[in-house]
């Protein structure tokens, strides 16, 4: 009865006790039902072909941007549910809402999902949706690689998200320090899921970094010299360069841990003179630039939103660019502030403490410049602008507490306490999340062709921001009361309860804000307010010179750029006809052809990763062969293109009313 034993064993590996908790089983059933319903719907309406040809194999940056956005919103929901579970557990002392093991899994997934699978794709959604339009290009430099990036991210996200129902979730925290994450202390497959999902998504992220760096450096429209680029493009360029050099150390840190766990090496182990601190070091060489990767695109968004809704030029363009460069440069040299407590000695700590503080200068320059941009303008309180307005007072608090953390002896008391938790939610939500949401509302009409309802958007905004303050301000004080992070629960009598109650209430208010936001999107989809002008906000940069959504090839005629806010100048100087095509100037356009190679490559990575996670080496090899096969196929297929002939271009443009008579 070999087969039977083997099957039993397999079932036990795939479904260990911790994935058989009633709530997880309920979620599993829900997901299965949802999958079946969606599948049935697609079959009934015969939309499989549409899905495959229009989306799964697409290399169009605009569609990839939309897919990133949808995935990011789903992940915000997932991470948000985790957050609400955390807060529910912490509302009262000695709570048993979840067991300790499950709590550990929940905060680990919360952190990992939010950083890697919510914030990063949200940023890439904005990059994809806007960068080529803003620089006057027809696509990114490497469209196929762009699709590969997306699918690697998507399969990485799937990998992390199936862990809770198959085999068990990671539970070592989002930075997963060894030796706790080593086999000796963490024998399940959860940690392997963590390592491999981040590794796969990380490869995709590096590829995105390369792609946008080259796109921005090489594909700008004629005349758009570096000093005429919109600030969001600058922010994206610098973010891409940070990605390039921050992710390889993460790749190494994760890879070495995997070698320890799966192949018996001794890098960070307790025995054999392993050195766990080296992991910590490598992780933060990545981790600190990472937090600026998260926030710089938001800075870029704000630098577009503020001038648009103040109807005024950006204050101090050069200083804005210079400060972005300075922040990115400095951010490589501050990572030790995450482990001042490791005993590296006062000189090391002082060096990194001071380098951290220096970042306040360029950041402060930006804060003041945004305010000065509004000075002498006319501020319209649209939803994107509201998010920006909430950002300034929020982020300054988070940044200021960052400076407190950088004061080394102070950090000896704050480290790993709720003060730290409050700091980083303060900057991540106040900076990154407010920023990407601002950007989402700002570019939504450009991406989809219809506007989001403003009144509902304002409600979502108010609930989210109000809930934010209520959630995270008490946590600073919890830190001073000695509450450390990652406590599955806490005893009564330490005075922690009252503040925790406030914090939990706030989290649910934020949850309500998120629900309103989703309602806002669905309602606006059902009652579309079409954007027929292509320029709903009276914008300043080139993307607003295009119809919403932009045609497949973006620009029928590549504009020649003369000034910083080119579209604004065109409107001011009455040159708007420059974006129109005519029979005389129209040319056939070459666009890259859709290809199934990216999704197949990513699927092969996925299969290989499953093999490594469960230690089924035949499967890992199978995945490896798949990867090589997909790459070889891609190499021989080269970059195939389709030609959109001039007549068709002219027809499309005529329908959009963009042909000169």
């Amino acid at each position, binding site marked *: 009865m070999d087969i039977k034993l083997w099957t039993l064993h397999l079932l036990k590996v795939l479904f260990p006790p911790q994935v058989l908790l009633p709530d997880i089983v309920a979620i599993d059933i829900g997901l299965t039902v949802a999958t079946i319903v969606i599948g049935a719907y697609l079959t009934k309406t015969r939309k499989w072909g549409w899905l495959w040809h229009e989306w799964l194999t697409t290399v169009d940056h605009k569609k990839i941007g939309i897919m990133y956005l949808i995935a990011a919103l789903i992940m915000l929901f997932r991470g948000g549910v985790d957050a609400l579970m955390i807060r529910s557990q912490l509302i009262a002392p000695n709570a048993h809402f979840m067991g300790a093991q499950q709590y550990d899994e929940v905060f680990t997934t919360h952190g990992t999902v939010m950083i890697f699978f919510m914030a990063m794709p949200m940023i890439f959604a904005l990059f994809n949706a806007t960068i080529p339009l803003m620089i006057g290009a*027809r696509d990114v430099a490497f469209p196929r690689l762009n699709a590969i990036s997306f699918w690697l991210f998507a399969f990485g996200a799937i990998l992390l998200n199936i862990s809770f129902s198959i085999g068990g979730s990671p539970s070592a925290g989002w930075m997963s320090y060894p030796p706790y994450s080593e086999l000796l202390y963490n024998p399940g497959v959860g940690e392997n899921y963590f390592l491999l999902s981040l590794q796969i998504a990380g490869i995709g992220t590096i590829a995105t970094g390369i792609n946008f760096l080259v796109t921005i450096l090489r594909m700008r429209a004629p005349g758009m010299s*570096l*000093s005429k680029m919109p600030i969001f493009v600058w922010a994206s360029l610098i973010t891409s*360069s940070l990605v390039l050099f921050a992710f390889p*150390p993460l790749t190494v840190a994760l890879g070495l841990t995997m070698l320890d766990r799966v192949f018996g090496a001794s890098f960070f182990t307790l025995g054999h003179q392993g050195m766990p601190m080296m992991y910590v*070091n490598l992780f933060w060489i990545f981790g600190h630039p990472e937090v600026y990767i998260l926030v710089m695109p938001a800075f870029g968004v704000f630098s577009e939103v503020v001038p648009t809704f103040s109807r005024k030029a950006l204050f101090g363009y050069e200083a804005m660019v210079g400060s972005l460069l300075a922040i990115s440069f400095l951010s*490589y040299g501050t990572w030790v502030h995450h482990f001042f407590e490791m005993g*590296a000695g006062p000189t090391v700590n002082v060096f990194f403490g001071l380098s951290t503080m220096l970042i306040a200068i360029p950041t402060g320059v930006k804060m003041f410049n945004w305010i000065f941009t509004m000075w002498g303008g006319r501020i319209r309180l649209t939803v994107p602008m509201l998010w920006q307005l909430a950002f300034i007072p929020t982020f300054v608090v988070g940044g200021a507490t960052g400076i407190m953390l950088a004061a080394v002896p102070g950090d000896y008391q704050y480290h790993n306490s709720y003060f730290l938790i409050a700091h980083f939610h303060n900057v991540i939500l106040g900076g990154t999340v407010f920023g990407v949401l601002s950007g989402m509302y700002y570019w939504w009409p450009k991406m989809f062709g219809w506007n989001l309802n403003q009144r509902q958007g304002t409600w979502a905004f108010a609930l989210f921001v109000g809930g934010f303050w209520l959630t995270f301000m008490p946590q600073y004080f919890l830190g001073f009361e000695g509450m450390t992070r990652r406590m599955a629960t806490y005893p009564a009598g330490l005075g922690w309860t009252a503040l925790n109650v406030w914090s939990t209430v706030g989290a649910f208010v934020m949850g309500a804000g998120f629900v309103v936001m989703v309602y806002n999107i669905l309602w606006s989809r059902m009652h579309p307010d079409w954007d027929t002008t292509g320029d709903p906000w009276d914008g300043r940069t080139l993307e607003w010179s295009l119809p919403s959504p932009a045609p497949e090839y973006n620009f029928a005629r590549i504009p020649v*750029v003369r000034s910083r806010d080119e579209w604004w100048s065109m409107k001011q100087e009455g040159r708007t006809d420059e974006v129109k095509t005519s029979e005389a100037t129209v*040319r056939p356009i070459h666009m890259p052809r859709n290809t199934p190679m990216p999704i197949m490559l990513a699927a092969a990575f996925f299969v290989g990763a499953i093999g490594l996670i469960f230690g089924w080496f035949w499967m890992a090899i199978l995945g490896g062969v798949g990867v090589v096969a997909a790459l070889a196929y891609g190499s021989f297929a080269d970059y195939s293109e389709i030609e959109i002939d001039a007549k068709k271009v002219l027809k499309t443009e005529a329908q959009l009313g963009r042909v000169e008579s």
Partner: protein
Amino acid sequence: MDHEDRQPHRIPTGHGDEVELAIFSPKMHQTHFPSLQITGYLLSIILTLLAFGMVAYHWMPMASLIPVILILAFIQAGLQLGIFMHLREGRGTTWQIPVLALAVSIGLGIVGFSIWIMMFKSGVS
């Protein structure tokens, strides 16, 4: 991806960086005999053997040995970059030069700072 772009000799107008960043304008070299390559090869062999000899036959006091062989390695890397990798070839602006410089400084920074940080302080009785 424009049609006009596919035709040689009709390179479209640049975006203007070429003026701002003239120091990064490309240099192409073309010779009739691969003399440059051969020189590079010979030099790299010599440098390798030199470093090896220093270590194997103790031509140097220990203290200065490691810095010297490291310097030799950097020289050799420079040769590879300049001669074999045509570092200064490109079109428009040779962006690879600043990007590479950034990468090299970050790579060296990671190594150097890691050593410094991981020395720890002493002070245990």
